[in-house]
């Protein structure tokens, strides 16, 4: 009797299992009439991806047999994306940060978009900087999601109060910092040297763009693994001069990145070299702090050398790429072409106070307008140094800059030697 009970249970379980397979198969057949594209990125619908549903809706109206499923705001996004790529379950279209984008391209995981660029004349639609940003081994593998320039944020009101002009040269910057040091509320004239290299490496990147450009850095990264590049050593020497001339207070090495933004917003630092991606957050922090600080950016770069390779440093941000293994290539390309059209990109620009990768942007904010001029003047050598070096090298560099700032006895050559060691 007991054996019979077990037999019945097993039969029922088998029936339920078979039925569910049959129904699932039925559903799959229906879905095949419409092609579904899977699109993922770290941007959530509550923030940068807010406009995506309406953009997708407009696309699907024009293309009723293509459905776009967007998934954003994913925690540990890059780890999950890597896992998906590893098991062959890559999304059709996805965003990746530049250092990963380069690795994915080199490993043959991305669709080569060079022909797509030529077909759509994207070379002239996008800013020149972004073309370099999305190039790996002379082929194009992505489209920039947004752009940012490295700018000199400063407190306009304090500068006006002290009667000082923006710095255009290294000497002028030292002079300004000397005056700022005497202001009681100022803890450090320049806020820098902060979390995970965001601050110090960014500032260094603004200098390296002028002293070496990106070419030798790419060569070191991909071939020689040797970062004892004269232009890089020169850049660290200039960084040391900033410290020796009192532009960066040693104690600032113990301050976290959010705290440094807070220091600038509350008037404890007068100058903050950082990228324009921080612009919106910076404005909000200043408004909330309700202080005398008025946000501005220097009209031009500060020239640290007489004959800079390029005066500006900038970056192309997150990169949209198509998976090499996508089974819906035509549909994904169609959607990407729609998404990257000037009309759609302008919708995104107006929604967020940010810079876009397209040329001829219509920016309303006066500060971002200035940043856009700098972005448009950026060349392929201007691409942000921080995104072209391996994480381990960046950490070694940052540790060296922190030691330099906090007064330890370390030379620029020692710092670059440590970076080279980290690369091997």
């Amino acid at each position, binding site marked *: 009797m007991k054996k019979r009970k077990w037999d019945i249970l097993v039969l029922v379980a088998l029936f339920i299992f078979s039925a569910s397979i049959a129904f699932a198969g039925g559903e799959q057949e229906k879905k095949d009439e419409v092609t579904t594209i899977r699109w993922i990125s770290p941007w959530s619908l509550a923030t940068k991806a807010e406009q995506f549903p309406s953009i997708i809706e407009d696309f699907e109206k024009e293309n009723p047999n293509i459905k776009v499923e967007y998934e954003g705001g994913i925690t540990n996004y890059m*780890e999950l994306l890597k896992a998906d790529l590893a098991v062959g379950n890559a999304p059709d279209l996805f965003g990746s940060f530049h250092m990963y984008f380069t690795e994915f391209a080199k490993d043959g995981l991305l669709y080569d978009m060079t022909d797509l660029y030529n077909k759509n004349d994207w070379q002239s639609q996008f800013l020149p900087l972004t073309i370099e940003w999305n190039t790996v081994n002379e082929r194009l593998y992505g489209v920039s999601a947004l752009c940012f320039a490295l700018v000199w944020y400063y407190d306009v009101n304090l500068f006006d109060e002290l009667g000082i002009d923006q710095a255009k040269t290294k000497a002028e910057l030292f002079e300004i910092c000397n005056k700022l040091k005497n202001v009681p509320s100022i803890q450090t004239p320049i806020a820098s040297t902060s*979390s*995970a290299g965001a601050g110090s490496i960014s500032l260094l990147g603004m200098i390296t763009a002028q002293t070496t450009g990106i070419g030798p850095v790419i060569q070191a990264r991909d071939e020689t693994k040797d970062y004892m590049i004269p232009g890089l050593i020169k850049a660290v020497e200039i960084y040391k001069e900033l410290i020796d001339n009192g532009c960066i207070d*040693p*104690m600032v*090495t*113990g301050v976290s990145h959010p705290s440094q933004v807070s220091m600038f917003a509350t008037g404890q630092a007068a100058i903050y070299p950082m990228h324009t991606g921080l612009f919106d957050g910076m404005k909000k922090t200043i408004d909330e702090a309700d202080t005398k600080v008025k946000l501005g950016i220097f009209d031009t770069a500060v020239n640290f050398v007489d004959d800079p390779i390029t005066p500006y440093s900038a970056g192309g941000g997150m990169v949209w790429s198509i998976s090499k293994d996508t089974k819906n290539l035509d549909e994904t390309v169609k959607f990407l072409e729609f998404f990257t059209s000037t009309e759609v990109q302008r919708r995104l620009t107006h929604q967020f106070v940010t810079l876009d990768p397209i040329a001829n942007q219509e920016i309303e904010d006066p500060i971002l307008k200035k940043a856009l001029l700098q972005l448009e003047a950026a060349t392929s050598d201007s691409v942000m140094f921080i995104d072209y070096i391996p*994480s381990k090298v960046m950490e070694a560099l940052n540790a060296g800059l*922190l030691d330099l700032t906090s007064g330890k006895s370390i030379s620029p050559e020692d710092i670059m030697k440590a970076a080279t060691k980290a690369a091997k």
Partner: protein
Amino acid sequence: MKKANFGRVKKTTIFVFLAPALLLYTGFKVLPILGSFILSFMQWKGFGKISFVGITNYINMFRDEMVLEAFKNNLIFGFFSIFLGVGLGLLLALLLDRNIKAKNLFRVSIYLPQILSMVVIGFLWTWLYNPYFGLINSFFSAIGADFLIRNWLGDSNLVVYSISVVGIWRNYGFSMVVFYAALQNIPQEIIDSASIDGATEFQKIRKIILPLLKPIAAVIVALTLINVFRIFDIFYIMAGDTGRRVDVLATVIFKNAFSYNKMGYASAISVVVCFLTMLISIVYFKTLGQASTDNS
């Protein structure tokens, strides 16, 4: 026949009820550990091709300055956690074992950090350690002790000790609670006899209480040591937030796996750390067994 059938059915029933938990345990614990062990002999970025490299990862690990430095930081953290953390817990337990007012309030407030998440603690102490407006430097400045002001998280000579203090603050409550419970189990007659024999407080503590607490102290030290090699969050948050590269083994594993794209190498380090922790756990269980015997 009936007896044999009943035995078979009983075994089958046991297996059926254990199967889901066993499947989950195998799937989420055993297989990943095995996978990690196999991966430790490979070179893999986490995507793309995998290649077999034998014991290269293990050899490189023992030459890697970053790993050796991280191990040193684990030991420093462990030293402070054991001697200061456990020692402070013991001292507080002894103090609280007296008739003092608001004893319960003290016990709760000392134990409170234990219930906070390490992430919250990391951010909280990053603010406390802020060199300009953090509470610690502000306090020193207010009492005229400017010479004590330091760059707690920015000075490479100080940062691992600054973070160790946070570890002590977080964990001494646990030691205090365990020691306090053990103190309640010491028979009062022994203490009273010692008092009658003329023993001083110090002698009672040294000759009677401490020896009786030895087994439980060994257990706490073993548990602390296990946690020392697992520590990740406060180092990742406090050191990472200010860009200062101060690593422990867990952060080295994390960085190699997810920042440097060296999954095989990270797996090799994690295998070694797992082995270390297993050794400590064996000592812990042996000591636990000894403590149970002594107590009974």
